[in-house]
């Protein structure tokens, strides 16, 4: 066990804070340090909670003398936060909570450890945008998308869009970078005085058929969308992604990214738009994007004994829609893992909204606590499948399959807590 450094000696903004805030930061660090040392995880959330108990206004205090940008969405917020941090990091010091602790306690913990003037790039849970925006007066807000997720737990997406809209009216940021192809996000962002509209094409539109403004019907075409009942329609865009090329400010950027898939091009377009709005040179920002090779273990290829596996994360139908782009090509067997713990949502009915048929003839091993739900979904999809009890036995079944190719890593695609389990299994976040 490696002990963390003594928390009392850590550097940070503590010396500029009021005594109460300073006490809150120190107490949070001590608790986080203790939690880490009993191996409860990173300790950041529980440390942040303790800090906030002592000083509820700590987030305002910790962001008083820094630039703050908020990134929120159903999907892509962690990746976009990481990409934006990397793009901004080419020109200034940056602090971020990109490990995924995206509510106020996690954010407080991340900021308490950083210099007081570092730019804060904050991934924020969809439900926490309002309170984080009010506390931080963030001058840039990046809003990517809203779609169904954690059906039993998260509010209906239209209510979230309304919360965002009210938040942007109450605490208007200098710039909002928003997705013009998502009607829910568009409606929310229209409440802000200055919006950079990003058009990346949205393939998943199943959650936006009803207009958030008038509950009329939204008609989608190849080039845009418009409500049939009111004047809500796709705004004209400032940043465009077409065929992998990002166009903005009269420039085009088409270099390779280290992260795979169309979805990461989309995330990169938002990160570049935000970095540019915050004054970073575009070429410099684009170079910064290429430094991002994995996102908290996503896309990692790891060695397990004499087998290599590739870890993929997909949490909800919109996420699977993008992940299947990476899974539909090859013919080798793969493993899919689904849990339904509190962080996943207890209701995995959304498995039926995912076009798993795109996997084609690949042999699939279903694991995770809800492997039987997966098996029934695969059965009705006419997908060649089998159920296994855990990752080890799934790998063994894959290796016995005639289609197994030992030169290729085995794809293991999982939803949230299943992914965390597998990541821990291969050594955790690097």
């Amino acid at each position, binding site marked *: 066990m490696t002990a963390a450094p003594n928390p009392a000696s850590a550097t940070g903004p503590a010396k500029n804070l009021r005594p109460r805030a300073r006490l809150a930061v120190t107490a949070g660090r001590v608790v986080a340090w203790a939690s880490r040392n009993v191996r409860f995880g990173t300790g950041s959330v529980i440390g942040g909670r303790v800090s906030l108990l002592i000083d509820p206004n700590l987030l305002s205090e910790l962001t008083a003398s820094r630039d703050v940008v908020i990134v929120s969405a159903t999907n892509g917020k962690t990746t976009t936060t990481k990409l934006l941090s990397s793009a901004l990091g080419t020109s200034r010091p940056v602090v971020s909570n990109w490990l995924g602790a995206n509510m106020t306690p996690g954010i407080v913990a991340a900021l308490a450890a950083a210099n007081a003037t570092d730019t804060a790039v904050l991934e924020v849970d969809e439900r926490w945008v309002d309170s984080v925006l009010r506390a931080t007066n963030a001058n840039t807000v990046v809003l990517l998308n809203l779609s169904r997720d954690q059906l039993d737990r998260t509010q209906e997406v239209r209510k979230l869009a309304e919360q965002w809209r009210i938040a942007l009216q109450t605490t208007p940021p200098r710039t909002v970078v928003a997705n013009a192809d998502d009607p829910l996000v568009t409606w929310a962002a229209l409440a802000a005085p200055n919006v950079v509209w990003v058009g990346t094409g949205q393939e998943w539109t199943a959650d936006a058929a009803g207009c958030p403004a008038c509950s009329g019907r939204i008609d989608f075409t190849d080039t845009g969308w418009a409500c049939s009942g009111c004047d809500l329609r796709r705004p004209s865009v400032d940043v465009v992604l077409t065929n992998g090329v990002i166009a903005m400010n009269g420039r085009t950027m088409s270099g390779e990214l280290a992260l795979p898939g169309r979805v990461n091009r989309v995330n990169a377009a938002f990160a570049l738009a935000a970095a540019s709005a915050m004054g970073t040179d575009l070429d410099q920002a684009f170079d910064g994007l290429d430094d991002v090779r994995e996102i908290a273990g996503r896309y990692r290829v790891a060695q397990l004994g004499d087998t290599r596996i590739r870890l993929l994360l997909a949490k909800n139908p919109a996420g699977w829609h993008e992940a299947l782009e990476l899974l539909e090509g090859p013919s080798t067997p793969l493993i899919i893992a689904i849990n339904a*713990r509190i962080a996943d949502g207890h209701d995995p009915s959304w498995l*039926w909204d995912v076009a798993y048929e795109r996997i084609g003839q690949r042999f699939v091993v279903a694991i995770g606590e809800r492997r039987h739900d997966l098996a029934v979904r695969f059965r009705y999809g006419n997908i060649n499948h089998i159920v296994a009890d855990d990752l080890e036995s799934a790998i063994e079944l894959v290796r016995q399959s005639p289609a197994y190719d030992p030169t290729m890593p085995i794809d293991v695609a999982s939803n949230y807590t299943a992914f965390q389990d597998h990541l821990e299994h291969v050594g955790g976040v690097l």
Partner: protein
Amino acid sequence: MTSPLTSRPIDSAVRIVSLYPDLLGTYGDGGNALVLSRRLEWRGIPVEHITVDAGEPVPDSADLYLVGGGEDGPQVQATRELEQSQGLHRAVGNGAVVLAICAGMQILGHRFPDAKGTSRPGLGLLDCETIRVDRPRAVGELLTASAQLTTPEGIIELGQLTGFENHAGRTIPGSRSQTLASVDVGEGNGDGTEGVVTGKIVGTYLHGPALARNPLLADALLGWIVGASAMTPLDDVDVASLRTERIHAARHHELAPRRSWRDILRRS
């Protein structure tokens, strides 16, 4: 392969319509259409699946209509469009089978509450009424005792019904309707019963999707169209495992199986 109960011509495909999945498709209920289609295909019975999005005309000549669950706003929009079209009303008049889930069941009834809690007129096809009650939203596993459909031709056994419920309203069955079962675990209609059946219209709060978890219910609906004798046994091994696991989980209130303290500290 046709039965004496129906006038369907031999060789014509069973026509299944998914109504407004763009408005009422939030909770995976689209899976019900896939389950029905496959269970016909696997038995060699031709099937045609038609998706009708909002704004499109509702055909009145199909055999089976599926109405799913959705959010409050789109629920009102769907009611408006179905009322205007009258296609579903005509189909029901012609003897079509309907499966309506959650919000779908609510709007097919006489009245239902909208997003603000105001009672609105429903389509009046299903003999029930849904009211807003002052209690927390019912969210969790729903498990019933053995369910039955009583028809003029006899009783159809459906077994225990299992699914996931997620709704706020209380549904009061009318005198011309029957319920599917009594509730073992969960809320259901709110009075200890689950589901409303009027003629060949079946309403239920079960997501999961309902027919993926309850194959006897799927076959009962199909049996109304092609005859019960055509419902030959299928390989339901995967479904049986899922049912065993979910029924156990519901009985033991295992909403979050194996959730450790470490999980709680790290992610709550």
